[in-house]
């Protein structure tokens, strides 16, 4: 099957406008006759559900949480990009497009990324109108800051809780539609299969997580906005419930899964503290605006710090290695996430790590505190040489900018980051891979759409900071509501979709068989036992750096682990009740299949780019070595077994941008 990306013809900057002008519309009176299912209520799903309901479609929205407001988008900290050029520092739609394609290491689709940059400014207008309280300056205008991989200040933020504020904005838009009766909300419901009738997605099988009841829901189209699959690593910055099930079930029903190996490792997370650890906590990348990253220059000092014999503040300036500033003078501490993560790993692997396990580097605010303190003293006409006064004033500025992040760090680590440098280490964060979609955000299954992190489309092999929130809301508010109409315009005479046909019967039976098999298995190990084992294989062999030998081993080990899981997993409790272990088991079962495809994709891609670093392909300086023959999207077709999946390629063409060596030096 050939992949048709359906990119509209014409110049890049006119493609989206021309496309919107030409695609079919649905008459407002007919929208009432059409049902749309939206699974997931984060920034992508939530904004899509609200907007589709606003347009007049009947929306059924599903989330596994107890409220749409708890979707994991809420945890995003740093900000959202938009090409507003409010700062007059040279930003433009083209520059945001350029930075994103380059930041993604030339592995994303030009037309999609340009559209993203184009609608970015609308997002800010929309959110402000909804009452999202972005940071403002004293003139009452919106404030901006800068993020990794970028030389302009285009990031809008609400302290370190931007995701929360944006999600609450789209949650309130959803609430308005729920109150109007245009959205029917299904909380604590999990989608366990998608139903295909005559080649079109026509509904889902969902499980009510409170009663355990299996339900059939039909619609004229199904939209998945179900987030990423980083929890395949067990330890990640994702919420505990984040999973791949909806996307994986769609994949098993024919939707291609693209670039599964592209995982973003976020450079500034709180390091692992012990075996009990359930997840990792991210510290916003915005901290790199003011924090300087370093490790001791001398091995002896590093060892003394690890043993607690030396405090970081005891190490004089000349004995510190600010390795990002040293290696990448142009971008310094603001290099993109993949570069910063690998550089931290390189230093720790070389023996310069600073915590007990040797897997941490310092993020230091002392210089920023002094700099801001002096500035404040100057503004207030106070003594700039009074060190304690300057320190106090500086701490106040840092507190205003990052206070909640500092508090979060202190609660977890029990150290005061205003007094001593933070310790950070890279952790699994965002997955750039996902279901393959065309320009209309439709998968290769008709009527099945995929938006936000769950699709593969906009970030290429790496994601720049503050671009995930942008994509989620762009897809949900401004792209899908147009493109889905083109498809649904053929459905105005279809009428209600029945749920008593053989396709729904078969899908429901498959789901109940799976649940029964799990609950009656009566093995000896818990679900977490398998999830942790899978995570360890993934991190050790499919993590920040990979090689062919390790990947081949990983594939074998995951296959064996999957077999063991199905023979030996134990689920307490019953099927028709609130049973968290059962819900977890269905998700881990899917991770055990995805993990293998993930490794297979990483093995086939014999190059390094972005979040995919193959040790065999690096420059003498240790930078990623891209290979032009791999300039394509790898879209995998399910055939019954992850190891037998068939590779389809969508070639990527760059007509508006020169593919260059990605350099941040």
């Amino acid at each position, binding site marked *: 099957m050939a992949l048709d990306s359906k990119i509209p013809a014409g110049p890049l900057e006119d493609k989206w406008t021309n496309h919107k002008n030409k695609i079919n519309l649905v008459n407002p009176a007919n929208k009432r006759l059409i049902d749309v299912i939206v699974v997931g209520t984060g920034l992508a799903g939530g904004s899509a559900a609200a907007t589709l309901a606003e347009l007049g479609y009947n929306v059924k929205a599903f989330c596994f949480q107890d*409220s749409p407001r708890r979707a994991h988008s*809420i945890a995003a900290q740093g900000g959202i990009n938009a090409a507003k050029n409010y700062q007059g520092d040279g930003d433009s739609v083209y520059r945001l497009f350029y930075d994103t394609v380059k930041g993604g290491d030339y592995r994303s689709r030009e037309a999609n990324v340009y559209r993203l940059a184009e609608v970015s400014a609308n997002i800010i207008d929309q959110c402000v109108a909804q009452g999202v309280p972005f940071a403002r300056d004293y003139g009452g205008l919106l404030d901006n800051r800068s993020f990794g991989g970028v030389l302009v200040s285009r990031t809008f933020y*609400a302290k370190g809780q931007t995701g929360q504020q944006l999600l609450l904005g789209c949650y309130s838009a959803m609430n308005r539609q729920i109150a109007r009766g245009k959205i029917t909300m299904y909380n604590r419901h999990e989608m366990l299969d998608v139903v295909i009738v005559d080649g079109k997605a026509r509904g889902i099988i969902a499980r009510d997580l409170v009663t355990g009841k299996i339900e059939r829901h039909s619609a004229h189209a199904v939209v998945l906005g179900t987030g990423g699959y980083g929890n395949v690593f067990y330890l990640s910055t994702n919420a505990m419930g984040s999973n791949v099930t909806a996307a994986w079930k769609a994949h098993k029903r024919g939707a291609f899964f693209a670039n599964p190996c592209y995982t973003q490792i976020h450079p500034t997370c709180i390091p692992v503290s012990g075996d*009990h650890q359930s997840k990792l906590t991210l510290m916003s990348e915005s901290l790199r605006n003011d924090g300087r990253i370093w490790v001791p220059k001398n091995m002896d000092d590093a060892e003394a710090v690890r043993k607690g014999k030396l405090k970081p503040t005891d190490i004089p300036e000349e004995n510190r290695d600010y390795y990002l500033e040293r290696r990448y003078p142009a971008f310094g501490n603001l290099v993109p996430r993949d570069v910063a993560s690998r550089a931290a790993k390189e230093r720790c692997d070389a023996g310069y790590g600073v915590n007990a396990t040797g897997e941490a580097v310092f993020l230091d605010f002392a210089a920023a505190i002094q700099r801001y303190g002096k500035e404040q003293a100057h503004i207030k006409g106070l003594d700039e040489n009074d060190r304690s006064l300057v320190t106090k004033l500086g701490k106040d500025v840092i507190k205003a900018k990052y206070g909640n992040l500092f508090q*979060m760090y202190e609660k977890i680590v*029990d150290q005061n980051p205003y007094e001593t440098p933070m310790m950070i280490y890279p952790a699994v964060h965002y997955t750039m891979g996902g279901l393959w979609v065309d320009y209309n955000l439709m998968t290769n299954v008709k009527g099945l759409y995929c938006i936000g992190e769950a699709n593969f489309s906009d970030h290429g092999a790496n994601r720049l900071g503050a671009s995930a929130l942008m994509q989620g809301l762009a897809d949900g*508010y401004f792209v899908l509501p147009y493109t889905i109409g083109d498809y649904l315009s053929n459905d105005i005479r279809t009428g209600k979709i029945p749920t008593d046909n053989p396709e729904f019967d078969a899908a429901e039976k498959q789901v109940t068989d799976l649940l029964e098999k799990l609950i009656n298995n009566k093995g000896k190990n818990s679900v977490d036992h398998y999830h942790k084992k899978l995570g360890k294989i993934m991190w050790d062999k499919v993590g920040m750096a990979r090689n062919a030998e390790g990947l081949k081993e990983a594939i074998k080990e995951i296959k064996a682990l999957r077999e063991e899981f199905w023979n030996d997993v134990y689920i*307490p409790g019953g099927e028709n009740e*609130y049973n968290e272990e059962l819900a977890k088991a269905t998700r881990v079962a899917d991770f055990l299949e995805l993990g293998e495809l993930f490794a297979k994709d990483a093995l086939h891609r014999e190059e390094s780019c972005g979040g995919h670093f193959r040790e065999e392909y690096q420059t003498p300086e240790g930078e990623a070595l891209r290979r032009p023959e791999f300039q394509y999207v790898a879209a995998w077709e399910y055939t019954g077994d992850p190891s037998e999946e068939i590779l389809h390629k969508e070639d990527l063409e760059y007509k508006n941008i020169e593919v260059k060596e990605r350099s941040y030096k």
Partner: protein
Amino acid sequence: MKLLLKIWRQPNAATKGKLIGYTLSDVSPDMSFLEMLDVLNQQLIDKNEEPVVFDHDCREGICGACSLQINGRPHGPDFGVTTCQLHMRKFKDGDTIVIEPFRAKAFPVIKDLIVDRSAFDRIQQAGGYISVNTSGNTQDANAIPVNKHDADDAFDAATCIGCGACVAACKNASAMLFTSAKVSQFALLPQGKIEATRRVLNMVQQMDDEGFGNCTNTGACEVECPKGISLENIARMNREYLSASVEG
């Protein structure tokens, strides 16, 4: 550390619950409270017993899913944190810890430590939004400047995570702190002003209909709020309500 846990077990909404004791050893002070429960659950599963269920998700203190009344206090003994941010270093070796669900008539128990907080959603649906079309045809975001202090205050109100600790802390199970935070956010911003009258009347009405009690200015909600939502919001809501009632 070794601990004695007394945990509320209740199979479902229709069955009566009771406190059951569990002892747990080898608890590390670096664990979060929920990780301590994970360890307990692993031991229960290994003995073919049913694990204790509790709401949790992001484990970074922002999603608002985690709850738990710990030794009689929502989110436990530490200040300004959710249960997922509470660490075992706040307890001592040999401690007895009583763990119960958030209690309120409007928060019925679903199972064990999980309660149904959807009443909060319905309060929001009664008017906790600005009626703007999600079309993207809104005016430029900088067209209406917003006083920085107002924007900061609106942000502070908007940081409410909807966990329900305020309700659980209140002797009247009042939802005034939660509702007032939402009312305040929009009342402080120029974009939300036009609907302010209808908003406050409808949200307060819904809050009462859900079975939440009244506010008697005890202030326990503010003390226990993991996000430091201020009582000033309740005062602001009362002012808004009064003037809306006069207008209305």
